[in-house]
């Protein structure tokens, strides 16, 4: 956990990262392109669980009542395929989850423009909400 925090602090000096009661909470800003909005992102992580990613601000748009693509219940962002070993606890959140989140945000904005999701990925049951590895 400390290593995760150090990597996040090192790569994103303007963000906040704390570890309390075994939970790492990172709050930082991501702007996936210079035209894009700057999103306030929260990443929560406990050992043995998958990181949970939420866009806090600005509120994500859902045009015409459509639901967001590639999110878990509660609009937590799905940035990796759970069974593909893409995310492992030995990987740095700073080098994986954060850039994937930025990419998610970019494709989210493209989705708002085109109505299509171009980021690739899988489409499981919408109710899938397991947060463990």
């Amino acid at each position, binding site marked *: 956990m400390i290593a995760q925090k150090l990597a996040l602090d090192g790569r994103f000096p303007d963000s906040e990262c704390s570890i309390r009661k075994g939970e790492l909470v990172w709050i930082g*800003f*991501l*702007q*996936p*392109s*210079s*035209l*894009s*909005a*700057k999103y306030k992102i929260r990443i929560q992580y406990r050992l043995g669980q998958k990181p949970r990613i939420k866009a806090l601000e600005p509120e994500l*748009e859902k045009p015409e009542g459509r*639901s967001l*693509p*590639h*999110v*878990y219940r509660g609009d937590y*962002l*799905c*940035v*990796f*395929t*759970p069974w*593909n070993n*893409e*995310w492992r606890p030995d990987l740095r959140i700073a*080098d*994986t989850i*954060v*850039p*994937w*989140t*930025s*990419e*998610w*945000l*970019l*494709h989210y*904005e*493209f989705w*708002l*423009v*085109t*109505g*299509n*999701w*171009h*980021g*690739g*990925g*899988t*489409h*499981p*049951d*919408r109710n*899938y909400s397991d947060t463990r590895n």
Partner: protein
Amino acid sequence: MSTTSELNSWLRNIADSLDLPPEVMASAEKKYTQLHKWLSRDHDEKYNSDAAVYVQGSIMLGTAIQPEKQNDEVDVDLVYRRDIQRTSISQQELKDQVGEQLRDYLVHLKRHGLKPPTLIEGKRCWTLDYPERFHMDILPALPDDEAAKHNTRNLEDAILITDKERREWHHSNPKGYNSWFRDQMRVMFAEKRAMMAKKAEVEVEDIPEHTVRTPLQRAVQLLKRHRDLRYLGNPDDKPISIIITTLAAHAYRNESDVYEALSGIVDRMPGYIEKREDEYWVENPINPEENFADKWKDEPQRKERFFQWLDQVNDDLDEALNQQGRGMQKVAATLTEAFGAEPVRSAGNNLAEETRIQREKGLLKMGAGGVLGATGSNVKAHGFHGS
């Protein structure tokens, strides 16, 4: 990536989708080849002189755009030049003789079981209206025997054309204009063509000239589309393409980026409109006697509309820039106002695909603040999950 280079990507992709659709082009080319072949043979059978048939207008310039409305037609402009003296034929005779040939052509098509287009006579040309979404305007012409008087360049390409409303032959030189237009972007054209050749790993000569688009051509396409949208209800009032194209070509400063080219052009365009006494002039760059804005004198509202429209382009470009940092969807909404929903959606789809492919190739990087692009550290392979 800087903001303007991202706007450049959007504008380049929007202009891409304004190009005439390949299937329409292919169909038009087939019809053109058919007509060209028949007309050449018919000419040789009927007359003892030489002739030339060639494409002119926006297709030759590489600035043609799709019509805004689904049922509007693409127009292909042709010159049919008969190499005879002006003293040997009257305007009326030339026009009638070409009309006669085209009627024979329709009979020929019918005889071969092909559905003929409709033949319509216009002020200066004959139109073949095809059931597919395009028509061909055929301009009967003679070589201009006084070319040097009316042309500053490409004298051998100068032509005389008929005009039902004028007693005098009208001087024209579409090839000369094309060569002037291409001179204005010569350097960037060579650069783009070389880049395309390098990317395709072929010789420069293997890249057909008509497949190359410079930022000047892109800017003209975007300006024409912007105008078409503004004047959807009253197409007769819209600023004419030849004025837009001429001023844009004058104002182009060899920019390599479509956004930079377009905003620079829009700023500088008015500087190329002259005021001669009480008359506004947009001089034909190859024929100093011709004023493309000759109608502005008697219909001053045309001048007003031109400047109003140009202001609107400026405002829309500024607005797109102002939306930076507020979300691509905001920028796209402004661009949709300016250029229409379909090209913007198509541009979004292309750009998003490019980003995904970059990442899959391991070429997508993330820089400071989360900005994705060609710099920073690599974005590792992964798949988005969830419905």
